[in-house]
């Protein structure tokens, strides 16, 4: 009761502020969900949730603020479908998803600036057929603002489709997916400013057309994805190549994995590799880590650059729906240089009730070697994620 009251207060209070981003996450291994496929249509996560995933989110991850005390969790789970009920067409699953960010950069400095970014508003429709939904068709339309500074002459769209694909599972173990999807690589964390997402070019808009082959055994899971780039881009720009990721389950709540990606375009060739682990430590608590290297060659000049990164994040579940986070990252943008960037940040992730997620992170960034007055900075990111 007390917790519900605290949640309700926080929810109302934080509503005066606003918004960025986060979904069913790799750290949910701490709840026993080692494979993303338990809850997502895409076997490597992100994108629309299955009915089961929605119910898990409503009954095991989120708190129950706003629901009558007498209502059992099972009954709340039954209300987790689109618009709080069972969709009348049994083979269709629509969903609407919004993510917003309030970003306050260089706090306390002359360069301080803050902004609200409506990162994503999307509508997704999943059509599923055959026994155990063997065949799925997923389509999405999304609004996504352009970053500041993008010249108008590029005539880029603010509307996009981040995923549209057809998937077929030949068996529980083997699945084949074709269309526009995220690239399989490393930990698919929702921290879009994480070095493991930015330096690898695996941001929220970096999906590619391709074919994803997924194999899942009792203790092993692997994805192989040849890709051709995003067809809406000029063909010269498209990165074409192959990426693969494998994970081995050391135990129910400990997984280790590795990823490898090769791709090339008219302008840039790149290869990258990484190793990662996800560990659940009791119910709701977890540690995730990913370390990797990205090698790039500019085709016009043959200039080569290698970058390395480390991403670690711990989650501690204080009570149902309330997580304390600690993120620690290192980036060495050029391995030939001593310069490194360290980022450490505590955070809170809150699911007060189903369909709502708040997250607040305070990042302390340190550039080393320290040579000037601005080599340390504090940034704050507050995210709001809503879905129907």
């Amino acid at each position, binding site marked *: 009761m007390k917790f519900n009251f605290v949640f309700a207060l926080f929810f109302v209070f934080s509503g005066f502020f606003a918004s960025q981003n986060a979904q069913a996450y790799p750290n949910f291994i701490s709840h026993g969900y080692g494979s993303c496929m338990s809850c997502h249509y895409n076997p490597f996560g992100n994108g629309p949730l299955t009915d089961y995933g929605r119910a898990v989110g409503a009954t095991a991850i989120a708190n129950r603020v706003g629901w009558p005390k007498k209502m059992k969790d099972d009954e709340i789970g039954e209300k987790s479908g689109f618009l709080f009920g069972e969709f009348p067409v049994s083979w269709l699953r629509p969903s609407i998803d919004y993510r917003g960010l309030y970003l306050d950069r260089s706090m306390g400095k002359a360069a301080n600036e803050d902004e609200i970014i409506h990162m994503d508003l999307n509508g997704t429709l999943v059509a599923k057929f055959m026994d155990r939904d063997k065949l799925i068709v997923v389509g999405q339309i999304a609004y996504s603002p352009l970053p500041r500074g993008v010249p108008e002459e590029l005539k880029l769209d603010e509307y996009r489709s981040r995923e549209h694909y057809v998937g077929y599972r030949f068996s529980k173990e083997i699945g084949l997916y074709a269309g526009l999807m995220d690239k399989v690589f490393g930990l698919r964390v929702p921290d879009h400013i994480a070095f493991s997402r930015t330096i690898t070019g695996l941001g929220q808009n970096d999906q590619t057309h391709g074919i994803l082959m997924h194999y899942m055994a009792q203790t092993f899971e692997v994805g192989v994805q040849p890709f051709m780039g995003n067809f809406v881009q000029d063909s010269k*720009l498209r990165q074409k190549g192959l990426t693969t990721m494998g994970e081995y389950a050391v135990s129910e709540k400990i997984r280790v994995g590795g990823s490898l990606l090769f791709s090339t375009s008219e302008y840039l060739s790149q290869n990258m590799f990484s190793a990662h682990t996800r560990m659940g430590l009791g119910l709701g608590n977890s540690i995730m880590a990913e370390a990797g290297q990205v090698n790039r060659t500019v085709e016009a000049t043959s200039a080569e650059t290698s970058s390395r990164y480390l991403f670690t994040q711990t989650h501690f579940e204080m009570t149902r729906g309330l997580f304390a986070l600690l993120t620690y990252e290192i980036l060495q943008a050029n391995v030939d240089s001593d310069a490194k960037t360290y980022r450490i940040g505590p955070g809170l992730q809150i699911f007060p009730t189903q369909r709502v997620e708040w997250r607040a992170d305070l990042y302390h960034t340190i550039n080393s070697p320290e040579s000037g007055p601005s080599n340390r900075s504090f940034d704050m990111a507050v995210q709001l994620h809503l879905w129907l």
Partner: protein
Amino acid sequence: MRKRNKLGILCSLMFLMSVTLYSCGQDYNSNSGDSNLGQDTSKIDCTTESGARFCAALTILQAECSSCHTHSIWGSYVTEAQWTKKLVKPGDADTSSLITKLKNVGGNMPQDAGALSDDDFQTLRTWINEMPTMNVRAKR
């Protein structure tokens, strides 16, 4: 049952096709500015005094700024006129946003890297301060 499935599949494929058509047009991705990587700078005359200042500044800008500012196509800026469009005020480094945004003077750029070295910082300042205002305007 089979009829329903066929109809469903047909509708889904039509939906998928419409989504694909709807998403036609250039999207912004991390690699949207890749075509600006490694721009040809061989046509810049670095033998004159002002040309040498620009070449020195451009080397720093390409190394420290352009790799991240791909979305704002800085990598394609190989003339002074392109830099003076918004980022540089000829003859006035102190109020040029290219300078005021730098960590060296309390800004937050370059992001995820340290402040520029003093030498590089002074090279940029000198380039801007020595830039002949009239000539740049005339070139635009």
